[in-house]
Structures are given as C-alpha cells and as structure tokens.
C-alpha cells in the first residue's frame, strides 16, 4: 500500500546564506495492507520528516513514494488532495482547526468532505468520541479550549472517522492515560484487521511492541556528512 524507494530530501535556507541541509538519503520501506510499521531513531533522525513527505506536506528531492497507485513525489496538488480525502489519513501530534467549530463537527469533517450525509457523519463522530471518553457535554464546544490529552483524543477520533486504507500516526498514545491508550491501541488493531496499512511513530515501547509488525530505523536514511 505504501512503497518508498531511495527517497531523498534536503532543505535550502535561502535567507541564511542559502545553506543546503541534506536530511534524508536512500530511504526505502514498504507497508502492506493490514500491516503496521513503526519508525524508530533518535530525535532529529528524520522520523517526522519522512511521515510529512509521505503525506505530501514536505516535497521530496528524489526517489519514489507510492501510496495506493499515486506517486506522491511527483503528484499534482489536486491528486494529493484527493489522496488525503479518500485514501491517506494522518493523526499528527497537534490539532489544527478553525476556532469555534464544535468538536462533533471537527471529528465529522473528514466524512462530510467525502459527501457522507451529515447525520451519518455525526453518528460516527459521536461513537468515536464516546469510545475515547470525551464527555458529551464537551461535544458542542470547540476543542481549542480542551486540555492536551483531550485534544489528542479529538485528533485521533478525527483520524479514524473515515476508514482510510492507509494511515500515518505520529505518537498517537503520547499524552493519554492507561484507559484511553487501550482504546487507541484497539482502534489501531481494528484498522489493521480491516486491512489498513499503517506507518507510525511510537515512543511508547509497549504500544510499539503490541501493534507494530516491523520496525524501521530511520538512522539508516540519514545522509553521511561529507568527509
């Protein structure tokens, strides 16, 4: 479902002496349907950068990056928009929403964007929020005022609202208590069972051991400094 071949990336800082910073070279990995692959490596090794490239958020300098049947490395913006809408979900560590929009609508939005009838979309959103223990009295409020853990759970509910065939998870259990961590791990297991290909970053070693089928150390993709 996800196939990455000799991917490379560098940043050029035009306003800082045009410094070119190579951050990735020769990155290759695959994620099959129903499989969860965990990225490991020290902070700054390029785990998030790789995830952002898969999502089309960062451009790639070279290589291939196939998600479904689209090469994200060379795709047109509108192809990536369609990919994100239908095929590729992303649970980032941060919730970025229009202030004032009720939590229920924030979670239902990916379904509404697909044309799901509003009632069905809200039902699905409500059941996810309930599973993730967000009290119903908060559903009509904007999540921008919620605690970090609550925002994280709203973000997860939103990421799992549509049954994406491929999913990127950036620290999905980071700021959660034991009960909610268990819910998230179960959601991940359910997604795998229905055939979703998952690429994730998990600092939580227990979570990693439980849901990941394989680990890929991104340190191997860090460009060697020129001698």
């Amino acid at each position, binding site marked *: 479902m996800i196939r990455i071949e000799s991917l490379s990336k560098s*940043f*050029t*800082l*035009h*306003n800082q002496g045009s410094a070119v910073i190579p951050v990735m070279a020769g990155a290759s990995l695959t994620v099959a349907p129903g499989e969860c692959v965990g990225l490991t490596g020290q902070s700054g090794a390029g785990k998030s950068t790789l995830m*952002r490239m898969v999502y*089309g*958020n*960062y*451009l790639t300098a070279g290589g291939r990056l196939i998600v479904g049947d689209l090469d994200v490395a060379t795709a047109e*913006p*509108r192809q*990536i*928009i*369609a990919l994100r809408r239908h095929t590729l979900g992303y649970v980032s560590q941060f919730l*970025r*929403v*229009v*202030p*004032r*929009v009720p939590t229920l609508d924030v979670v239902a939005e990916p379904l*509404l*964007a*697909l*044309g799901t009838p509003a009632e069905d979309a809200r039902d699905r959103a409500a059941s996810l929020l309930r599973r993730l223990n967000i009290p119903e009295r908060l559903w009509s409020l904007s999540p921008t005022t919620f605690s970090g853990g609550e925002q994280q759970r709203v973000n997860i509910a939103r990421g799992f609202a549509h049954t994406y065939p491929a999913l990127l998870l950036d620290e999905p259990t980071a700021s959660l208590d034991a009960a909610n961590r268990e819910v998230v791990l179960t959601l991940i297991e359910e997604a795998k069972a229905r055939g979703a290909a998952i690429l994730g970053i998990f600092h939580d070693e227990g979570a990693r051991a439980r849901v990941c089928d394989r680990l890929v150390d991104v340190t191997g993709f860090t460009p060697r400094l020129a001698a």
Partner: protein
Amino acid sequence: MTVMEKLVATDQPLLRVDGLTKRYGPRIGCADVTFDLYPGEVLGIVGESGSGKSTLLSCLAGHQRADLGRISYDGRDVLAMSETERRRLSRTDWAYVHQNPRDGLRMGVSAGGNVGERLMAVGARHYGQIRGKAVDWLGRVEIAVDRVDDRPSAFSGGMQQRLQIARNLVTGPRLVFMDEPTGGLDVSVQARLLDLLRGLVRDLGLSVIIVTHDLAVVRLLAHRLMVMKSGRVVEQGLTDQVLDDPQHAYTQLLVSSVLQA
C-alpha cells in the same frame, strides 16, 4: 450522487488562466500568471502589498482588462466575450466578495432587499419566493430573521460581511472571488466567518479564489496556494506544503516573518 462525488467525477478545470499579464504603463501589475482551478477547489493568493494579487483578482473577475493572456471559464473564452455576456456571467455564475462590505452592499436597502435584489436581477419576480429565499440565506449566514428589514448600516462589520456573502451566493454561483474577506474583522468574528465559508465551499461545491495577506486564513481555507512577488507567481502548490516547506526565498521570508500568537 452527492455534490462531492459529482465534483470528483468532473475532471475538467472550471477556470484556466494562461499567461495573464497586466501592465500599468511601464510598471507590471501582474505578469505571466498561469493556473487551473477545478470545481470545489479553493485557491489562495498571498503576497505583500503591491505584489499584484489584487490586480490579478480584478483582471480575473473582469473589473480590469488584462493586456495579454487567456482566461477560459467552463470552456468559454472570457476575454473574447461581449460586455453583455461577461456581465451576465458575473451576475449568475460568478460572485465577488469585497474586503469592505460597503463596496459590495447597497447600504440604503434592507438586508432582505440586498439579497432579494440579486434574485430579481436574474429574473425572479414572485415577491413571496424572493423573500423566502432571502430569509433562508440570511439564516445560513447566521443573521436572525428579525433583522431582515434592517439596513446594513445598522449591522456590525462581521454581520455586514456575512450579508455580503449571502447577497453573493443567493444566485448559486460556481466561482467566487474574494478580496481579503476577513480583513478588518476581529479575530473571533474572523473564525466564525472562516467556519461559515468552509461549510459553504463544502456543501455547495464552490470554487473560490481568495486573496489575502493572512497566512493563517489560507491555511484553514485554501486547498492550494499561490505566492506572488513583484507581479509574478514565485511559488505554488498544496497550501500546507508551501507554508511548511517553502522553496522560494521570498516564501521562506514570508513564512518565517509571521508572528506566533
């Protein structure tokens, strides 16, 4: 089939712009602008004052005549149209939301009249139906029904802007031009307007070209982004990609200059 599915099924751009250029004497207004806009897509145009983004928008909307280039709307050559044809297009298929609601509203006419007038301009004659539709649209932009007979001058800035949007969308346009629609509004009012616009874009499948200098607004509203400097497009792409991984020196400067709230 839902609106969204229909949109996905149409694979033809609604608007094609090719090599559009406008000069003011020896100075460049905008030069060699090329892009396609598909149904349901929101394109943001950012750049500093004088970068040509407003010139571009007014050339696209037909408020100014471009010197060079082509604009094709739904397969029709816009620059070759007669003035009557173009006016009909801007009353029916197109809409233009001004930064200052006073430029897009008739301040001496009631809120309901502002919306109803547009319907009459495209041939509606039945008073009850016009009023019914006007009230429905005021509701959609969250203006209470008991304000329908008030003049816009009695409204707050945010309400005026929402009224302008209702007046523009009541005729069911497919392409909406917006010039700094959230400029000059309080942040809380801005958020409400952004939420409204996102819902309308999604539910009506609108294509939108929005000019703004506010990067937070385009991040939340625009699918794609075009960055202009000195009349030229220096970078374009997926909105979050351009903002998070800018390639051009000017875009990098623009993104890094935003103050964090």
